[in-house]
């Protein structure tokens, strides 16, 4: 079915499914089939922030003073985050917009993707601050085999779905000859790939991102790279919202509150979705080994991070109504919670536990002679 930027057929968006119904025509939000997406948009808009608001001036000094293996951990983690947001800044739009059928969901996809571009811009802000030549960091994202390996797995489902949608858009449902090969375009195969792609996006944002957040916050737990942690705290707040979005899409499909055909498709995808989670957890544990290959840092090592991978994977599986697949029950990084609290309340910097704000306010270099003028 060819995509139309303004579908001229009069339709009732309250009766359309989330995807693969009619293309959206009028962008209206006075009525919604799934009001949750409108709420997510409002929340996301209320979260708006700009990377430049965060002062990173002490981070450079902290970075210079770090041991070599810690710099490797910090930069590799940042490269991984840059890769993930490079993907997320464009892919929800490219993959899902051509097949979305609800105005509120269409706008949520755009709002979601836009917020990811703010994240991407914030990595440039951070990298510019800590290294003299940002290209050394950015270029390595496509050169470093460990990162390239990650890129392949986080984009696989997206890329196949986009390819299948292109064929659907150009040729429609049926059997076609493409480059001398027979290709069958079917709506049920497309819907199946859609479900799996959204599941893999949920894994990207709800598991992979959180593992990287743990590394960012571990530095700040030692009162270094606090500006970076402040940026990541804002990113984490957005990501919590995004993962709620993909969880909703998957749950609406599986529970029969959307396209009735999706119930059976979701059921048939169950094992594969669990496998996507298991594979991602395995890769994240491997990544933890790479991060800490030259040495651990205070408060975090490959083993604890791997335990966190298992813990967060279980939490996310529960969010989708699936059984847990790992033994771990309690959070091995309880201090993460303090960083993930993202209350709407704006905390004044002097009240927050960000010690960089206090640097210069207190002179901690005291000697006995400083008390000479004191009389009791």
């Amino acid at each position, binding site marked *: 079915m060819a995509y139309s930027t303004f579908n001229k057929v009069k339709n009732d968006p309250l009766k359309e499914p989330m995807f693969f119904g009619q293309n959206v025509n009028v962008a209206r939000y006075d009525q919604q089939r799934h009001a949750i997406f409108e*709420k997510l948009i409002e929340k996301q808009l209320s979260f708006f922030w700009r990377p430049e608001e965060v002062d990173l001036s002490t981070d450079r000094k902290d970075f210079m003073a770090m041991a070599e293996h810690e710099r490797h951990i910090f930069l590799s983690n940042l490269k991984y985050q840059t890769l993930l947001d490079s993907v997320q800044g464009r892919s929800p739009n490219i993959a899902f917009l051509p097949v979305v059928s609800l105005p509120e969901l269409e706008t949520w996809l755009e709002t979601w993707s836009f917020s990811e571009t703010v994240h991407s811009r914030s990595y440039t802000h951070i990298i510019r601050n800590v290294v003299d030549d940002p290209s050394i960091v950015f270029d390595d994202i496509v050169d470093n085999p460990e990162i390239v390996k990650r890129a392949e797995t986080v984009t696989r489902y997206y890329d196949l779905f986009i390819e299948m949608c292109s064929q659907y858009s150009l040729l429609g449902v049926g059997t076609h000859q493409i480059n001398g090969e027979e290709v069958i375009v079917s709506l049920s195969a497309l819907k199946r790939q859609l479900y799996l792609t959204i599941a893999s996006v949920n894994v990207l944002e709800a598991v992979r991102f959180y593992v990287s957040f743990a590394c960012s916050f571990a530095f700040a737990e030692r009162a270094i790279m606090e500006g970076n942690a402040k940026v990541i705290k804002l990113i984490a707040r957005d990501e*919590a919202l995004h993962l*709620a979005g993909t969880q909703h899409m998957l749950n609406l499909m599986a529970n029969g509150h959307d396209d009735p055909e999706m119930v059976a498709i979701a059921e048939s995808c169950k094992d594969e979705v669990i496998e996507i989670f298991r594979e991602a957890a395995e890769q994240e544990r491997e990544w933890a080994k790479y991060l800490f290959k030259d040495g651990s840092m205070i408060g975090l090592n490959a083993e604890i991070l791997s335990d966190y991978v298992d813990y967060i994977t279980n*939490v996310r599986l529960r*969010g989708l109504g699936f059984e847990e697949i790992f033994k771990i029950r309690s959070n091995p990084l309880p201090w993460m*919670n303090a960083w993930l*609290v*993202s209350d709407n309340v704006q905390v004044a910097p002097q009240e927050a536990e960000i010690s960089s704000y206090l640097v210069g306010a207190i002179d901690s270099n005291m000697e006995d002679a400083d008390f000479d003028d004191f009389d009791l």
Partner: protein
Amino acid sequence: MPVPQLMSSTVTINEVQSFSYGEEFSLLDSMEEHQIPVTYNCRGGYCGLCKVKLTSGKVNWVQDSLVTLEAGEILVCCCVPDGSISLAT
């Protein structure tokens, strides 16, 4: 003249612990006030970590939940009790 009595809401958790809700912003705040361990992240109704089962009684929502909830599930960061309630964590 009879003095009007303020209705206090008793919150019972897993049938073993109970406390009186004291007009805090949310059940989560009240649980923290009474030092009852509770898992949470966002306090804004979208991370879903403070999800519990409401086994009896009624609650009022003070902010919207943005996560999928099954029948009988509530987010303690988004609700206050309306009379006495029981929760299962």
